[in-house]
């Protein structure tokens, strides 16, 4: 018994499904309806997307149970894999926290909408329930050469024109999306090299920022690192901490006024070989022209 044959069940003579399929249906259907309701209720857009992805996987399982193996897997690949993924991508692009505004712009829209929705539901369901369907035949004969082959015979046979047309449609859609989202660059593109040059010309910091106080004698995020001259580097503390005022005071870690590095007791040496002829640290930073 294969996975597929476990899922799919040939119809009985009377056109009803096997009991295995019925169990599958009654487990999945409520879950899917719940997931779909999430679409109406949920506030966070990502939750909605996840719920819909779940519904689509559920649909794929139902397709496979209904002897449409090809479409079942295409459903997963195309809908869950590509379309919902695209939705998630756009969600993250336009800001995931964009939530619905609760202000009603059209008065009474909510009530009218709900009424209309219930109306559609009642009409459709009553039509489906009251309609008389022929005795179900099942796809055993049509799927004799395996389902993908059966579908492809039709797609590339009777429906080949439609197939070509959808191909053209897809290409057009891809081009359209490119044009819609394309933005003309107003200036010249600034590349890595130009950025680096501009940085040097501005005299900005060239090296990565020093990590907070873990270099020398301290080991905490709120303590500034010390440069080779024993001066605290203020930027080494996270900007967030600085704005909140949670950093340890930098002054506490500075060398005392006039203290020469040579006079620092040996156990507090930060940098043992200090060349006295090197320029002052301020000049090296080069940030003073601004």
């Amino acid at each position, binding site marked *: 018994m294969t996975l597929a044959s476990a899922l799919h069940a040939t119809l009985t003579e009377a056109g009803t499904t096997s009991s295995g399929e019925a169990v599958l249906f009654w487990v999945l259907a409520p879950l899917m309806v719940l997931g779909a309701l999430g679409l109406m209720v949920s506030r966070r857009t990502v939750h909605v997307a996840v719920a*819909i992805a779940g519904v689509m996987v559920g649909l794929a399982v139902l397709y496979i149970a209904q002897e449409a193996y090809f479409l079942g897997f295409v459903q997963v690949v195309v809908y869950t894999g590509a379309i919902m993924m695209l939705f998630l991508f756009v969600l993250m692009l336009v800001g995931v926290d964009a939530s619905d505004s609760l202000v009603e712009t059209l008065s009474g829209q909510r009530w009218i909408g709900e009424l209309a929705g219930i109306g559609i539901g009642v009409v459709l369901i009553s039509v489906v329930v009251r309609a008389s369907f022929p005795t179900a035949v099942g796809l055993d004969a049509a799927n004799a050469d395996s389902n993908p082959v059966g579908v492809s015979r039709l797609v590339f046979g009777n429906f080949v024109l439609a197939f070509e047309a959808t191909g053209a449609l897809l290409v057009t859609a891809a081009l359209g999306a490119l044009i819609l989202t394309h933005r003309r660059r107003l200036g010249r593109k600034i590349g890595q090299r130009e950025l680096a040059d501009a940085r040097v010309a501005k005299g900005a910091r060239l090296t990565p920022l020093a990590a907070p106080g873990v270099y020398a004698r301290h080991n905490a995020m709120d303590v500034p690192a010390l440069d080779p001259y024993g001066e605290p580097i203020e930027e080494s503390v996270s900007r967030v901490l600085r704005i909140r005022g949670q950093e340890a005071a930098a002054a506490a870690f500075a060398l005392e006024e006039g203290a020469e590095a040579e006079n620092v007791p040996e156990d507090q040496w930060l940098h043992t070989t200090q060349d006295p002829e090197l320029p002052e640290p301020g000049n090296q930073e080069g940030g003073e022209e601004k």
Partner: protein
Amino acid sequence: MSLTNYLVLATILFTIGATTVLLRRNGIIVFMGVELMLNATNLALITFSRMHGNLEGQVFAFFVMVVAAAEVVIGLAIIVSIFRTRRSASVDDVNLLRN
């Protein structure tokens, strides 16, 4: 279990999708409602295909999927470009032409 159950499920899903389109105002969620409606129709098509014993229903569902893919690509591109200019994904904010 008769195959009508599948059709009922399809109509319920379709209704939920349609109601979402009517009620929600976030463009992306509205769009997902449309997708749900398309999926519900696919389920109905596949059920009919099984009921009548030929694969044409499945072929229709296949084409619906392809067209849906094209539609999503364009729709999301429109949402992105609206968001770029108006910083909002709400369908209420797109009423510039009215005044």
